[in-house]
């Protein structure tokens, strides 16, 4: 044990003799590791959050497809879908996009009749009717009964103010509120399909905690959205279909395609798979960034593995000449690799955690933002996958230590005189 301590002590003295070079290696190594961990932390956290909340998405969305494009769907289709066994509530969805020329941003507009849960959380809910009734009977939305029970939703801050209950009222996302400099009791102007300016009274602003879902959202009355977009009253954007038994969703989807061939049912499983792919670290730009960092690490390790500096070779020669065994030299180099790689890995991991979970991935935001004017701030929940943490740990420490030991082993088994002479 004493021998190992002495070798470690010598290793640290040796590293300190070349302090600027080693400090540079530790800095570069730490930043590469920080980049790798940042990508893994960001994608895992976003994926976990998306998959958790989107489990509550509608079981089936039925779109009408015309000329290969999404078209408005006749509300008559609901009667045909209702005939399918196993189908629960069928609700038409009214939504669309609005380009705001004042701010150069795109909003998502959604028309509602009102929702029970959101209203029971708003300040004047006693006087507000509940046009979408809560489920009746056994089995209807039973799996979420407990989660959304009145006891559980008390105290949840979904929106400040309330949801729109009358015509020309709206609830807006935090992003819209910021970009239009408006809030509760303010007004928002939108131009309808005939060029007429419609004024909406802001009665609610979604809480900033939910910005990842509602940042660009403007929720208005269903009749207002029909007027704004000039939609016929017998058409909806798409139809949400509830299926009691999740196992029957593919069957119901194929049945809908059979009886309504011009439609495209989108299953909840497909929505979830989309987000699994979207936030997979092995996809798109995220993978490119990951690969870049990994390549930088490989170059660093390769540089170490391809040879020792003249100074290092001379040091090994002197150590051998004064009686160090080959095993001792290898242990010295092992500790050198461990000191540098462990210091860098742990520092990189801490930097990555602070970057993603305290600074909201501020370095990646410009890349991820793209051309979006309204982009939600990342308030990521720190979901950390220990498997990923250990994979990166082993993938960087072991190659680096190996790349430090192998060239030293070659020098250590050579005659000290030859090594010292270079």
């Amino acid at each position, binding site marked *: 044990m004493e021998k190992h301590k002495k070798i470690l002590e010598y290793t*640290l003295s040796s590293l300190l003799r070349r302090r600027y070079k080693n400090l540079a290696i530790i800095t570069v190594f730490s930043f590469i590791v920080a980049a790798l961990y940042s990508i893994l932390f960001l994608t895992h956290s976003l994926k976990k959050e998306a998959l958790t909340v989107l489990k509550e998405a509608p079981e089936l969305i039925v779109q009408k497809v015309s000329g290969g494009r999404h078209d408005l769907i006749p509300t008559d289709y609901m009667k045909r879908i209702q005939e399918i066994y196993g189908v629960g509530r069928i609700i038409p969805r009214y939504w669309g996009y609005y380009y705001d020329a004042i701010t150069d941003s*795109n909003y998502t507009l959604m028309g509602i009749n009102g929702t029970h849960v959101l209203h029971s959380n708003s300040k004047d809910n006693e006087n507000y009717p509940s046009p979408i009734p809560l489920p009746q009977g056994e089995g209807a939305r039973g799996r979420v009964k407990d989660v959304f029970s009145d006891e559980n939703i008390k105290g949840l801050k979904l929106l400040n103010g309330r949801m729109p209950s009358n015509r020309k009222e709206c609830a807006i996302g935090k992003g819209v509120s910021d970009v239009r400099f408006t809030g509760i009791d303010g007004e928002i102007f939108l131009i309808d399909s005939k060029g007429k300016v419609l004024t909406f009274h802001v009665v609610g602003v979604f*809480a900033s905690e939910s910005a990842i879902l509602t940042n660009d959202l403007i929720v208005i009355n269903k009749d207002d959205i029909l007027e704004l977009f000039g939609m016929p009253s017998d058409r909806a954007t798409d139809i949400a279909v509830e299926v009691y038994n999740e196992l029957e969703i593919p069957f119901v989807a194929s049945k809908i395609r059979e009886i309504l061939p011009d439609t495209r049912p989108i299953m909840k499983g497909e929505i979830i798979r989309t987000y699994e792919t979207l936030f997979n670290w092995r996809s798109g730009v995220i993978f490119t960034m990951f690969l870049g960092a990994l390549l930088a690490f490989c170059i660093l390790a390769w540089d170490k593995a391809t040879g020792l500096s003249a100074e290092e070779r001379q040091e090994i020669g002197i150590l051998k000449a004064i009686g160090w065994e080959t095993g001792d030299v290898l242990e010295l180099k092992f500790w050198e690799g461990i000191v540098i790689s462990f210091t860098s890995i742990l520092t990189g991991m801490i930097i990555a955690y602070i970057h993603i979970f305290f600074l909201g991935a501020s370095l990646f935001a410009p890349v991820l933002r793209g051309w979006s004017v309204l982009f939600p701030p990342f308030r990521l929940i720190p979901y950390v996958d220990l498997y990923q943490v250990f994979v990166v740990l082993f993938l960087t420490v072991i190659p680096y230590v190996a790349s430090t030991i192998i060239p030293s082993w070659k020098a250590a088994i050579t005659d000290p005189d030859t090594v010292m002479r270079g």
Partner: protein
Amino acid sequence: MKYKIFIGLILSEILLILALYVFSQMLIERRSIEITAKKILVRELMLTDLSIWTEARYTRHPSQADLFTPFQDFPSSVEHFPAGSIIAPPENIKTWKSIKRY
């Protein structure tokens, strides 16, 4: 002496990482109410997508995009938006034999 400083440094970094991990678990627990609130929003407003990229309709609602998006203007047209390059092609495109009609 130097090795004691080194071991102290490594141990303090490990302790900091462990503290951050414990902090994460506590924060996940504390923010579980926020997740419940988001689930209510998704359920009651029937949302299907996250509001991250608002630059194009297929980046705002990737799960609801047309089957041939992003080649929406003409076949083989180039992708316009930076966010589109973040999204990898779906699995069924990579193995096109398994394409389903729904």
